[in-house]
């Protein structure tokens, strides 16, 4: 009985060329993105051994725009329209914390009605973002209905925001000092009606998607992120809440009028793909209640915006303010040197933080689970790149 080694030696004597398989031959390197819709303008390299992912290296930057540098060339108000570009589906939230930081630096007092309206706009906008995310999550798990329904229902909120701000996605509505304009006549009734309808729809989402056995099988127990690791990796938003940490900036550090609103922080303890996809859904449910409360508690009249000098500027100093966006804590670190232009603006986004969990979670998973894991991180590439 000749062993493989003997055969190998023998073939050498005969002058035959036999190439032995090495580790590298078994691994295949795949580049996911940046133009493939499955990753959304974000590239990550993975290596697969058969069906299993054994290596993952994110390579962001495909849509890097230099937002932080651009901020240094513009006045604080001029920065608003371009700062919302990184995540146009959630444009009210990304300008919200910027406004808070500028208000702290310049010393602006926002009228109460203005605070309510911008909280309302941000809640509506968070729904728009989460529905868009849910549509993508649905289609990448092969569920076409879950692509169509949220995309359609998203129009409910887009219409509301259009009535409120005049634009469908890029609103430039939150500005330092309040909001750009007051709410139109009859907005409250329309808003309540559409939100009530949406609440009914959410039940149907649950039936057709979250309770579907196929979806459960594909997500439950997949890519578990434990509580300790979630803290260690410093992930944000729905990802950290899915791992059993009830951390929501609206509760932890209530900004504007959120301390007057009654709501619960939604979280789950399992930390798998299912929890990460279900927590945003629970957030949407809770957000409907918040919207109704905001409409009820809003002062009926009053200013919506503080009067500002043409080029608002404050004394030198710095501020770090956060809000809860659709993808978790969204912070702005703004340094001012006393001129109307910010000296330095650093945007800290949940997407960028959640990216760190991607290689951690992906390694060891099957290639077929890659979309389920990747999109469960609530990752928005354009926002992470800034």
């Amino acid at each position, binding site marked *: 009985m000749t062993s493989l080694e003997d055969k190998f030696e023998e073939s050498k004597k005969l002058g035959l060329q036999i190439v032995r398989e090495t580790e590298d031959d078994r691994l295949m390197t795949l580049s996911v993105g940046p133009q493939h819709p499955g990753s959304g303008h974000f590239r990550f390299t993975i290596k697969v051994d058969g069906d299993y992912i054994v290596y993952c290296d994110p390579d*962001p*930057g495909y849509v*890097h725009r*230099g937002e*932080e*540098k*651009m901020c240094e*060339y513009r006045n604080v108000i001029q920065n608003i329209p371009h700062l919302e570009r990184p995540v146009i589906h959630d444009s009210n939230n990304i300008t919200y914390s910027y406004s*808070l930081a500028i*208000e*702290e*630096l*310049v*010393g*602006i*007092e*926002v009228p109460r009605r203005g605070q309510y309206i911008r909280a309302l706009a941000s809640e509506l906008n968070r729904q728009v973002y989460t529905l868009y995310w849910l549509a993508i999550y649905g289609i990448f798990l092969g569920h076409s209905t879950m692509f169509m329904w949220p995309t359609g229902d998203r129009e409910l909120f887009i219409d509301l925001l259009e009535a409120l701000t005049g634009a469908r996605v890029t609103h430039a509505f939150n500005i330092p000092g309040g909001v750009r304009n007051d709410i139109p006549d009859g907005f409250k009734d329309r808003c309540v009606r559409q939100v009530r309808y949406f609440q009914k729809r959410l039940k149907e989402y649950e039936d057709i998607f979250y309770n579907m056995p196929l979806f459960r099988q594909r997500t439950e127990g997949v890519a578990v992120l434990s509580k300790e690791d*979630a*803290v*260690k*990796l*410093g992930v*944000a938003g729905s990802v*950290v809440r899915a791992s059993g*940490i009830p*951390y929501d900036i609206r509760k*932890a*550090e*209530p*900004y*504007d009028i959120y*301390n007057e609103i009654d709501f619960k922080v939604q979280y789950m303890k399992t930390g798998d793909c299912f929890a990460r996809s279900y927590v945003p859904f629970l957030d949407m449910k809770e957000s409907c209640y918040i919207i109704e409360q905001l409409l009820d508690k809003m002062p009926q009249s009053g200013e919506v915006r503080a009067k500002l000098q043409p080029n608002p500027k*404050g*004394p*030198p*100093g*710095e501020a*770090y303010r*956060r809000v809860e966006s659709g993808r978790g*804590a969204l*912070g702005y*670190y703004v*340094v001012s*040197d*006393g001129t109307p232009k910010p*000296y*330095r603006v*650093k945007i*800290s986004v949940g997407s*960028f*933080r959640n*990216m*760190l969990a991607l290689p951690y979670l992906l390694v060891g998973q099957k290639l077929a689970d890659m979309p389920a894991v990747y999109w469960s991180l609530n990752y928005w590439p354009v926002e992470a*790149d*800034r």
Partner: protein
Amino acid sequence: MSTNKDEPEKPAASSPPIPSAAKPPAPAAKPPAPAAAKPASGAQPPKKEPEAPPFEKGLVEEIKKKFGESIKVVFIKPLRIKIQVEPNSIVEVATFLRDSMGFDHAESVGGTDYPKDGQIEVIYHLGSYTREDLGAHILSLTARTSRDDARLPTLINVYKSVEYHERETFEMLGVYFEGHPRNDRFLLPEDWADIPPLRKDFRIKGR
């Protein structure tokens, strides 16, 4: 996460410090901030400085008790503390903050270029998930390094969460993090051949 402080005075979560007043970093009875492009103490605003809140003060006392005068407290504001340390002690301080104070993750790492001082300030915004009373707080840990030879020890062994942030800071500001496994290209194009873009001497073309 043990604390020997039992501060009954928790900064009321119901009163966020929204527009209390524009206040420049308050050198609260401590050595003034790095004399620099930073808060000119000459530009004293007309309003008087609000007293530093007791809970934040307690946290700072705790740090000062451990490290003494090597820690510079830049300001104490409601929910926000900024301290500055020497580069060679930053790992030690960060370890203490993580193990004894409960600041368990870094939310963001950024840097600011101060060409007038010839320095770059790297700032770590540390937050806490595990300690509920610190949920609203951000502790800013900063260190300054010279612009010409910008080097700092990495905090990756203390806070895993800084990995990508430090990489970003490396390419955007050119601060080399000693001990970081990958000081290389991250967000910028692969063929980027210019100075780090967030340095002040980098100008956007045409501006």
